[in-house]
């Protein structure tokens, strides 16, 4: 059985249309105009045990909305979701104990209290046994290197430390399924790397699956073998990251190193590239560029 199943999943929001100007605002007061906005449109995919899948797409593509439906926060407008056999929307305690939703932009820690208080609260809420709690906590603290931040008021922590503390709070109950929404947003390069390493280790050492969204291609390149590319609520690609390039880019780059060391590059249609080219480097176009061009609609 698949760990996560999404079948024809859609989410339609009602958005109030603001008219222009003061007269428009007055009109809005009495006759608000609503419009349906499809955030996710008939999306289907399955994810299996052990997978670490990247959701990529521009802002407003429907990544976060999809994650929210998978975690049971949003009620799908239509379609079916099953996560570990549960219907997320019912938010069964057993389901909630097996998942975690981490949103990089906001925190769930108690702002005015030291982080350790939030962890202790999580222990009681999830009913984690003391022995297990101590074991999980010390291994998370060690992996994320935040031992010195535990007793500091959360508001006083740096963004990076806070993000790590968020991860501890989100993972203290050893969830099987992790939904990570922009886990590295706003972090510096070193901290991004630390969080990435951590996610990789977590995936390797735990059963279950991880879904990750990110704007940083580095995150995806390093972590995800499989990616699902979403644009305007539709899945436009679901498969291996390594095949994204061949699928969406019609060109290869031929690089010629001249005698004087100068490098000349030329984009050549994929089909026209000779099979064997002596002393010629043939490189793929950078994935960032490919994906960008996918969204521009080329």
């Amino acid at each position, binding site marked *: 059985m698949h760990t996560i199943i999404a079948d024809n999943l859609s989410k339609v*929001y009602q958005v109030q249309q603001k008219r222009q100007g003061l007269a428009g605002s007055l009109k809005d007061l009495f006759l608000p105009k609503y419009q349906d906005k499809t955030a996710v449109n008939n999306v289907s995919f399955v994810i299996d045990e052990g997978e670490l899948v990247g959701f990529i797409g521009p802002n407003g593509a429907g990544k976060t909305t999809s994650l*929210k439906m998978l*975690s*049971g*926060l*949003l*009620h799908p407008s239509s379609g079916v979701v099953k996560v570990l056999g549960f219907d997320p929307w019912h*938010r069964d*305690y057993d389901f*909630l*104990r097996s*998942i*975690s*939703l981490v*949103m990089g*932009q*906001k925190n*769930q820690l*108690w702002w*005015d*209290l030291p982080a350790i*208080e939030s962890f*202790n*609260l*999580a222990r*009681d*809420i*999830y*009913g984690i046994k003391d022995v297990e709690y101590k074991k999980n906590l010390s291994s998370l603290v060690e992996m994320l290197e935040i031992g010195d931040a535990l007793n500091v008021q959360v508001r006083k922590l740096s963004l990076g430390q806070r993000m790590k503390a968020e991860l501890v709070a989100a993972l203290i109950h050893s969830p099987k399924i992790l939904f990570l929404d922009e886990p590295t947003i706003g972090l510096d390069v070193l901290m991004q790397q630390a969080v990435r390493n951590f996610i990789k280790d977590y995936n390797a050492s735990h059963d279950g699956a991880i879904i990750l969204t990110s704007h940083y291609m580095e995150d995806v390149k390093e972590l995800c073998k499989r990616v699902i590319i979403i644009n305007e609520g539709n899945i436009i690609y679901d498969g291996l990251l390594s095949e994204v390039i061949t699928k969406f880019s019609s060109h290869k780059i031929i690089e010629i190193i001249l005698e004087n060391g100068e490098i000349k590059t030329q984009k050549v249609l994929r089909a026209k590239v000779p099979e064997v080219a002596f002393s010629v480097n043939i490189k793929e176009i950078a994935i960032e560029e490919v994906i960008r061009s996918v969204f521009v609609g080329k």
Partner: protein
Amino acid sequence: MKKYISIFSITLQEYFTYRLNMLMWRIRQIFVFLIPFFIWRAVLGGGGDLYGYDFAAIMTYLFGTTILRSLVMGSRTVDLGWMINSGYLTIPLMRPLGIFRFLLTRDLADKLFNLSFILLEVPLIFLIFKPPVFLQSNPSAILLFVISLLLAALMYFFINIIFGSIGFWSRDVWAPRFLLMVILEFATGAMFPLDMLPTIWQNIMLMTPFPYLLYVPLKIYLASDPNLYLHLGIQLVWTIILFLFTRFIWQKGILRYEAEGR
């Protein structure tokens, strides 16, 4: 159960982080008593009575509503509308928690917090203003009062969820709240005893849920409610209606929750 005890304790811990805030809030509570005190002293301080209340009786009443108010109307659920609009609601929703139980636990923490301060403030007010205090000694009156008090606290809890749930449909959660606050100020009997009103108005008011938050429980404590059982019955019915309505509106609203900003 342990999870709710933990939430209870962390809610209290959070209060203690803001000492100045805490102090100011307590001072506000004393003013809540002082303002009507001085008004009524100006009216009745020289002797005489008004609608059957002399100065001593009205002071007993106000002293009572001040105490009841912080027990019944001490609540954290007032920020539910904000929780919905800011997306904060996501946190408890994503945890294995009963959401109503979570909200009620925070309310109880708030009430305990209030109660502990009342125990400090009441003797203080008492020493300074010496309002005549009526100590109920009849166990059955005390029992009925406690039941009425619990129902009142539940009613207020449900009213707050209903008003907070407006957040599922609209961003304007404050205007309805202010309207509610104004209504509560007089319709609960916090400012003056409702039996000062003409009988017809009293009867109309007693059809609404508001007098059952302060006025009726206090009257039961003072053993001066001639229709005690009728009023307890209406209070019970209102509690049930409010509960059913709360559940209904919540189930409708949560479908619309968008977890914005998170």
